[in-house]
């Protein structure tokens, strides 16, 4: 229910624009590095949304990048069928899995001040040196989660994607933590799944508290 109200909120936010189907879609862009589960994150997010009856589309930036290289993945959420196939150039939300990318890649490209930003870090936006950029953004849409630490704690390895989805669920309210957990369990199994679910829950909690 919380998730639906958030979508409603988005609708309200975009009522200024023409009421085309374009304005109904919610677009998330995820930045990270090869090996961090960037693509998986987008996919799990789409599954979480699907679990809640939404249409969702997740796709990677189709590179041939190897471990460590900057990677981007996309996820679109909508109440209706998603037909468009273009990359997300104007995201409604940004998930940054690796804060070191902030000064290497133009992660903020096409971002409007109404966007959500979730960064995997133990530091603050100020500490990350992006305070100037986010000035004018809605503070409640800016969030940091120590996803690596949570993953280390719950999964045993610094794999931040699941935890970040938990954080994103809390931040955006677009999907429930349960849906995220279900999505995680569809991608992973056994202890790995439960560890990631635990990390997501911890991140969810952390983000709510934030």
């Amino acid at each position, binding site marked *: 229910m919380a998730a639906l109200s958030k979508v409603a909120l988005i609708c309200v936010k975009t009522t200024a624009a*023409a009421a*085309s*189907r*374009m304005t109904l879609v919610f677009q998330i862009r995820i930045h990270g590095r090869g090996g961090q589960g960037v*693509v998986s994150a*987008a*996919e799990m997010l*789409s*599954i979480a*949304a*699907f*679990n809640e009856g939404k*249409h*969702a*589309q*997740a*796709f*990677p930036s*189709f590179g*041939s990048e190897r471990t460590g290289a900057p990677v981007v993945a996309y996820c679109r959420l909508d109440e209706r069928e*998603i*037909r*468009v*196939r*273009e*990359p997300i*150039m104007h995201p409604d939300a940004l998930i940054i899995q690796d804060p070191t990318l902030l000064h290497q890649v133009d992660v903020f490209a096409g971002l409007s001040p109404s966007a959500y930003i979730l960064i995997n870090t133990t530091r603050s936006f100020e500490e990350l040196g992006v305070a100037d950029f986010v000035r004018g953004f809605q503070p409640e849409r800016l969030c940091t989660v120590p996803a690596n630490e949570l993953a280390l704690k719950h999964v045993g390895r610094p794999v931040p994607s699941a935890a970040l989805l938990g954080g994103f669920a809390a931040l955006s309210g677009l999907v429930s933590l349960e849906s995220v957990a279900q999505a995680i369990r569809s991608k992973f199994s056994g202890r790995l799944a439960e560890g990631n679910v635990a990390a997501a829950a911890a991140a969810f909690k952390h983000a709510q508290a934030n």
Partner: protein
Amino acid sequence: MLKQIEGSRAVAEAVALCRPEVICAYPISPQTHIVEALGEIVSSGRLAPCEFVNVESEFAAMSVAIGASAAGARAYTATASQGLLYMAEALFNASGLGLPIVMTVANRAIGAPINIWNDHTDTMSQRDCGWIQLFAENNQEALDLHVIAFRLAEELSLPVMVCMDGFILTHAYERVDVPDQAQVDAYLPPFNPRQILDPAEPVSIGAMVGPEAFMEVRYLAHAKQSQALSLIPRWAGAFRQAFGREAGGLARSYRTEEAETIVVALGSVLGTLKDTVDELRESGGRIGVLGVSCFRPWPFAAVREALAGAQRVVVVEKGMAVGVGGIVSNNVRTAISTRPIPVYDVVAGLGGRPITKASLAAVLQRAMTDDLELTTFLDLDRALVEKVLRKEREVRRSGPIAEQVLKLKG
């Protein structure tokens, strides 16, 4: 059953439901996830009996499929790009021998320069290899087309290629409705081969045919493929009845009612186009879309009929014949050759270049006012190519000049 899965997985599920007996697997991006998933399904025992053969090349993949099909097994493989070209010889062979193999092509550009991203150059290059070529608009259709493809292939005894955009569809997670086994079984009866290698009734398949009969053989191949033009709508109709949704067919119109401009395209770009056309329609544009599902055989009549009311046609295509221009557009022109209307050709998305709504909207608006060159390259960095061309012209001149300078210097 609705599932949020990757396009490749959706295709693998569909293929598995079709009960292939021999699957040939060779990795090439962006097709790899399909055969990986099938391998997993076979090893799980869910698809049995089935031989999953890890071959050493695409040429071998198609060849193993040829052997398997000739021996009466339902055979499947998947490939892309260079892999499709590497099996080119075997493609002609499979169709020439009339073997109903089904193959997924995860469309991808052809090098050089090597490029792993999506366009249609691979399948377009094989448009005359005698295979039926079906193009999927989205993952649901990709899934559905495989079920139809096996039915069609075995009915006609011809191989069928299901083309889906590499990465854009193969790697996209989307909602798909995966049919259940009973539904597919009802639609697709067991393979009853038209000819089979069987010690009980020996035949020689693949004779050498000389000038005295080769024309007739080719004519019959043409006639047989043309039969698909009536069978495809029939099997699409049957599919609609059985599964309750549209899939396949020859071509499908979108908002072409009273459209002066109709945009023709194949594959996943249709989704973006439809969104774009929706916007243009909202601003009063009389524009629609014609999605061609069946590129080979080329549905002359269906295209002619769909474009009957248009005053101009724009073909957005992810491939081109170097030195000529559009490939699909030329096919469109032959379909409507009796009507002197402009057919604009928009070459787009080569090598994975994103096709954005904004760019499409811009080019379509120009087309609607007939303010467009006959061949346009969408989002081409014109400044860059001009610069390169200019440089090349200079370089070309510099040869003799340099020689003369050297001569002068003695």
